[in-house]
């Protein structure tokens, strides 16, 4: 339970509409992995079954595994608003089709808003079904930690995370893993309110020379990215830390991998980080 003081009573909620987006492919089909081997695997778009928060992030025959619903809005501007304003933990309600009324939560962003919900609800959702997202969280400030920028984080989710203000005044965060900057793949250089940061060296079954020791990550894990400043974009910066929630899973495409949605970033001196054993 978080004890962090925030400006949550000043934040507003916007109801945004989206739809479950189909999986997309082109007529050439294949992509190639790190060793040049072609593959054709599911994972992005549509409704992806069998992977939820708490499950292993990797170990699936999948590429860019997006748990649950993959949601976009029709229209470029409306879609960017949805992608930028949706926050991890936001409530999502299915608004059409047989699953109308089913409720899930945003797990993160990945150029789609990713929505985790109960498996029996997911089974009744099809691409094209409409959803609403109660977008709440951008603008969040941690009042006792002015050097830390929060984003993509529903204050209600913050309350459930192992994040607290420590006796020394620093923000205490318990994470599943420390991620070295060398693991940061696709996502570097992009704005940090959009998509996530793919982590390389994070799944088994590759050569030893590709491993960075991150094979045990789970969906929904909190991780800390070392030497990453994601306050106003995503970049390498010695002495900065970024905390993220793992929102996507297994990925064969080289330079990609399971990825955290950035939620907190600031100078390392503002954090005390504990690794769960």
């Amino acid at each position, binding site marked *: 339970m978080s004890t962090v003081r925030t400006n949550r009573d000043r934040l507003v909620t916007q109801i945004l509409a989206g739809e479950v987006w189909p999986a997309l492919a082109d007529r050439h089909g294949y992509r190639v992995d790190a060793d040049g081997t072609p593959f054709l695997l599911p994972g992005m778009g549509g409704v992806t079954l069998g992977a939820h928060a708490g499950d292993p992030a990797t170990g699936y025959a999948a590429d860019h595994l997006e748990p649950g619903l993959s949601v976009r809005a029709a229209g470029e501007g409306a879609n960017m608003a949805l992608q930028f304003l949706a926050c991890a933990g936001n409530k999502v309600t299915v608004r059409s089709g047989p699953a109308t009324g089913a409720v899930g939560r945003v797990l993160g962003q990945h150029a789609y808003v990713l929505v985790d919900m109960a498996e029996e609800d997911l089974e009744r959702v099809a691409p094209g079904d409409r959803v609403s997202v109660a977008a709440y969280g951008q603008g969040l400030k941690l009042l006792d930690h002015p050097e830390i920028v929060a984003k993509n984080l529903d204050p209600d989710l913050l309350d459930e995370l192992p994040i607290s203000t420590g006796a020394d005044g620093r923000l205490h965060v318990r994470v599943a893993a420390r991620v070295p900057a060398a693991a940061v793949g696709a996502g570097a250089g992009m704005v940090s309110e959009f998509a996530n940061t793919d982590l390389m060296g994070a799944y088994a079954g590759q050569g030893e020379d590709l491993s960075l020791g991150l094979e045990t990550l789970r969906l929904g894990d909190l991780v800390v990215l070392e030497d990453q400043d994601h306050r106003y974009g995503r970049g390498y910066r010695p002495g900065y830390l970024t905390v993220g929630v793992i929102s996507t899973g297994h990925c064969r495409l080289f330079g*990609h991998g399971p990825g955290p949605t950035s939620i907190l970033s600031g100078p390392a001196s503002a954090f005390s980080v504990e690794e769960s054993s």
Partner: protein
Amino acid sequence: MKTVAMNLSGAVETPVMPSSPYLIDADGHPYVPIGTAGIVLGVHLGDGVFDHDADHAAPGVTLEHRDQAARHALTAYACLGNEAVVHGGAAAGRRGRVLGKRGEQGRVIVVFPDDVLEQLLPGDPILVRTHGQGAVISPTVTLMNTDPSFIDRLPLSVDGDRVRVAVRAAVPSSLAGNGIGRPAHMWDIDLQITSGPFRLGDLVAVDDLDVRHNAGYRRGWRTVGVIVHGGSPQPGHGPGLMPMLCGPAEALSLEIQGDQHRGVTTGDIESQP
């Protein structure tokens, strides 16, 4: 196998901006990006990558194509050293050479003499004699984005399955920013640095980076490329390295030259075969 050349067309890029001009720098401050595309005057090979208060400024012009798929193809097939000829407008017939490329929508960077730059306009058609993808330099070191006829102007030597190349410096893969996870035949890799002695045209090595099938981390491998554009205030961006050589570190050895380094120069670009 014999390599194949193709004449492709591009147009001098028209810079575009959204209705708000600002981008945000690494400290959260707004800035107006200058010199990102099109015809940029006053930036030359050999200039320091942080000499100009600009964003991703390249020496010369960038090319685009009105059809996005054709633009990707132009970007994919254009290689360092390819000849480019102005195909219309006030500078018709004048020649330059491809220095490199940038990613996302795809941009080809062409260096022309200053008097040609002064005559060019956005939209002027440019013919590029694309040639180089598929060329082989060694059984163990992969060559890409480089016209084989330009190799003898580069500070490298081939000895059987080993390649030795002179570079300004070698940097760790954690500095590889925008471009990581993207196809290196179509996308440069921004080095996440905000200071340093690097110059436009320098050859630079990135350790533990494999760019053969997308750019990604691979321990013990190495990528060498040429710096094709200058720095950027945007986090995750910086001077752009277009990959040219990639292999296991033991097969791709370096002579780290520091201040003595001479990479791709204006003379290399302007001399005719």
